[in-house]
């Protein structure tokens, strides 16, 4: 290895280490300042809570055997929401691609549904389906569905015209064009829609739990704020941060895996 290369690699490494240091520094600094401010009475821990009380709250939840239950129920609602939303969205987009006339007719309705804040439909679903995870899953699904349809349909329509022409020169019909070219070439678009849905599904499940629920992280947040237990609220938000990030990375890994197996990265 040449001297110049060594210096170059060293420089890159130092920059990376420095970035890692500051990342951790900010995290620790934030919680340290929060804790100190609460202890010295600069802020009132009754309304801001404080890190040590958050940890105690989480430990208590764990001891009461309800920590995992709350996490799992919310994670379940979110996962079902974005997975079903993406599958259903892709199916509907496929139908719309196969029947362009249908697409033309439904366009204004799509625009209306897209503009509508889907959360507004929440109470309706609760009345129809009843309170419980099913209603929350439907709310969650609705939030990501329309965006998913539009993204995937956009991808389908933008499929390379010459690739489609190739199938036509073989005498392929519409269904074959779809299964041999349109669907496989749009796999990255579909996985990307899945990725976008993850973030939106968290909104659906948490707000759904705000509306009506007996368990879940959204329930803990709303319950905590109503009884003025800010420790509980902050603890739930912190847990939410962690599992939402974990879920996002899991989907990111899934995306990499799928695209790599299909040689589309």
């Amino acid at each position, binding site marked *: 290895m040449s001297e110049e290369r060594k210096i170059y690699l060293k420089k890159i490494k130092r920059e990376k280490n420095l970035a890692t240091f500051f990342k951790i520094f900010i995290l620790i600094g934030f919680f340290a300042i929060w804790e100190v401010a609460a202890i010295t009475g600069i802020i009132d821990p009754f309304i801001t809570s404080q890190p040590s009380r958050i940890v105690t709250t989480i430990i208590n939840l764990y001891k009461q055997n309800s920590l995992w239950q709350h996490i799992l129920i919310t994670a379940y609602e979110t996962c079902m929401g974005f997975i079903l939303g993406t599958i259903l969205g892709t199916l509907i987009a496929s139908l719309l691609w196969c029947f362009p006339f249908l697409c033309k007719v439904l366009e204004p309705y799509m625009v209306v549904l897209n503009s509508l804040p889907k959360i507004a439909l929440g109470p309706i679903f609760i009345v129809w389906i009843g309170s419980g995870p099913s209603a929350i899953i439907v709310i969650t699904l609705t939030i990501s569905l329309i965006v998913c349809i539009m993204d995937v349909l956009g991808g389908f329509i933008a499929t390379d015209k010459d690739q489609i*022409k190739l199938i036509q*020169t073989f005498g*392929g019909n519409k269904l074959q064009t779809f299964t*041999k070219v349109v669907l496989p070439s749009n796999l990255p678009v579909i996985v990307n829609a899945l990725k976008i849905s993850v973030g939106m599904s968290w909104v659906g499940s948490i707000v759904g739990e705000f509306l009506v629920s007996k368990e879940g992280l959204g329930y803990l947040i709303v319950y905590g704020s109503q009884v003025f237990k800010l420790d509980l609220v902050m603890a739930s938000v912190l847990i939410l941060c962690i599992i939402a990030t974990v879920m996002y990375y899991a989907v990111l890994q899934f995306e990499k895996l799928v695209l790599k197996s299909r040689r*589309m990265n």
Partner: protein
Amino acid sequence: MNKILEIKDLGLIYQTKDKELEAIKNISFSVNSGEFIGIVGPSGCGKSTLLSLIAGLIKPSKGEIILSEGAHSTGYMLQKDYLFPWRTIWEYVILCLEIKKAKTKENIEKVVRLLKTYGLYEFRNAYPDELSGGMRQRSALIRTLATDPDILLLDEAFSALDYQTRLAVADDIYSIIKNENKTVLMVTHDISECVSLADRVIVLSTRPAVIKSEYKIDFGNEVLTPLQKRDRPEFSQYFNKIWGDIDIHV
């Protein structure tokens, strides 16, 4: 020589929302079995449309396309090689058989033979990103030959390649086509490519495309590769004549 394809008084008018567009007007010519026909013309003159008509992808507004008895199918090769990144070479070359539901033992054996003859058999499980431009073009040709078409339609088949690769690939594809004894209709904007490959060149006018002139390309009795033809004195004579006919103004 027996006639394999006859085009009679062909015309096509495109209908769009804003206007009608006459793409092709009164085109008539015929193709003999085993011939290599090159069609040149200024860009946007409707060359590709002509191939789409012959392939049956669009219906003519006027005139007839008659395939002789026994000749039943055409094979189309497009500008870019259009391998699918998610399909291996093998999955790709049998794509056509898959769509036509013609994966018979006989056809599969034929594809295997083609792959073996043209040095792609050991790459059958490779993905397109692992192959060179020339190999990809070969795979595309084998895919086209897989259903044993009577007429090959090449639509700017080499245009996506850089100049040097293009000369080599044209040579390669030419020898395969001659070896398999196929009739070819090639559309290109490249006059020198046309003169070096074709037995006969048809020059089209600007839109609406009509046949402006026709040249029989004759390099004597010697068997020459397209690359060798480019060195011949006849080559530049043909080139200049066709260049004059195309009449490009900038």
